[in-house]
């Protein structure tokens, strides 16, 4: 149970940190914020890798593999497209 309380504590504190950090993002960067945070939510990839790698049963391996594919699309696609957008904002500084 202690374990659970720690997890909840971490969750709540992270919500506050998120709130602090995100409210400083200017509206002009809201689209990159969405795609970038989207990529971060692909962190489920870590769990997917464990499911695909431990190979408990064929079923869990298949589930894990599918989850790896979906999460990596989310991660790679999200970070790359965010980079593409942010560079467009950046090049104004010439």
């Amino acid at each position: 149970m202690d374990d659970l309380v720690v997890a909840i504590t971490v969750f709540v504190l992270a919500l506050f940190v998120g709130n602090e950090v995100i409210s400083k993002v200017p509206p002009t960067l809201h689209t990159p914020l969405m795609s970038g945070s989207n990529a971060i939510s692909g962190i489920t990839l870590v769990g997917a890798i464990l499911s695909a790698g431990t190979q408990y049963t064929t079923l869990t391996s298949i589930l894990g593999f599918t989850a790896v594919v979906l999460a990596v699309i989310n991660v790679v696609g999200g970070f790359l497209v965010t980079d593409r957008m942010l560079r467009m904002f950046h090049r104004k500084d010439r």
Partner: protein
Amino acid sequence: MTLNAVINLAYLVAAILFIVGLKGLSHPRKAVRGNILASIGMLLAVVVTLLDRNIVSYQLILAGLVVGSLFGAVLAVRVPMTGMPQMVALLNGFGGAASVLVAGAALIETVIAGSTPAVDFRIATVASGLIGSVTFFGSLVAFGKLQELVNTNAVVFPGQHPVNGVVALAALGFSIWVVMNPESTGAYWIVAGIAGLLGILLTIPIGGADMPVVISLLNSYSGLAAAATGFVLRNNMLIISGALVGASGIILTEIMCRAMNRSLANVLFGGLSSTPASKASVDAIYSGKVKAASAEEIAMLLETARRVVIVPGYGLAVSQAQHAVRSLAQLLESRGATVEFAIHPVAGRMPGHMNVLLAEADVPYEKLKDMDEINPTFAQTDVSIVIGANDVVNPLARTDPKSPIAGMPILDVDKSRTVVVIKRSLSPGFAGIPNPLFAADNTLIYFADGKKAVNDLIQALKEL
């Protein structure tokens, strides 16, 4: 130090990189680096996970990583900037689906291992399946609408609310069943299935100008699903990352709702009270008062203008007019005028949609002004050019308390000396109401497609 401790410390570093990376988004100049830091955090998290002792084979993992990376990279490189809302919706959905699968696999593994999972594990698993599935199917519908594969309008049918209520109750009921009977793993997939149906039902009645709210909300869900999966796996990094994304989505959702002066519940369940305006009332507003102008007339106005404000809306994205608009702005500036862009928070189909399009066309971000910043300056503006925007410049929001957009903060373009509206016809915007701005004394309308109209203006200006 055990391997486990090393892995967990590396996860902490990854979480810090995510936070620092998001912090970088507070300024366009630091943002590229911030995004790179966050992606390094992700890479670190993946690499240390591969060290986990429970992993017996790497073939599936590598295959999945390669296939997914290729697909993701192709998507990211090929999507046009106008297609960004769809892209974000799709990626959201994939993240949600991954959460459903991971939590399901974890449940099966625990049951096969013969241990009865703890109550909190079961609750987290079900939450992950529920939220993840709503995210996935809701995002697919949002993607379909934005890509115009399915009906883009709000789809409403009689008995919608009772049906949604029943489906929601069913999802909840089966969730409780799974928590009580964790051994029956099949029920978990039933929960995911019903939640998927719920995701579809909740997204189809939302259309057009309300899309920014839905996208933000689904973004938040994808984070919360990841956090729930973190509770399943007892992984603090997942919990932290999920909470960050959840918070981000919630903040954006709130900003979007405030920009429409509507509550979240109203956007999700209320829909606009869209009894289409009667023809008589439309005629009373427009008849005989709408002044159409030629490109030459407008060019002459712009010739002498010292300050010009351009107001883009979704129509700019539809006609891909961003590059033409940039050229027009540069031409006016070369003639000594000041040109700024007024961006309403809900212009377009997702938060920041207009900013990305104009950034693509090389419009400096300093020239993109928020509503609060630009509104006081309209009184000193010689010409405002409205391109493909309607409801966000409708003065009825200020004057008519019975209007469906009453109280919605708008861009006060009607206060500028002259308003030029570029529009294909007088058809109403998403709110379905006429716009008195189009019939105002100081308004000229140029009837044409956005991109063509702007190019015509450029031509006419050069010929003066």
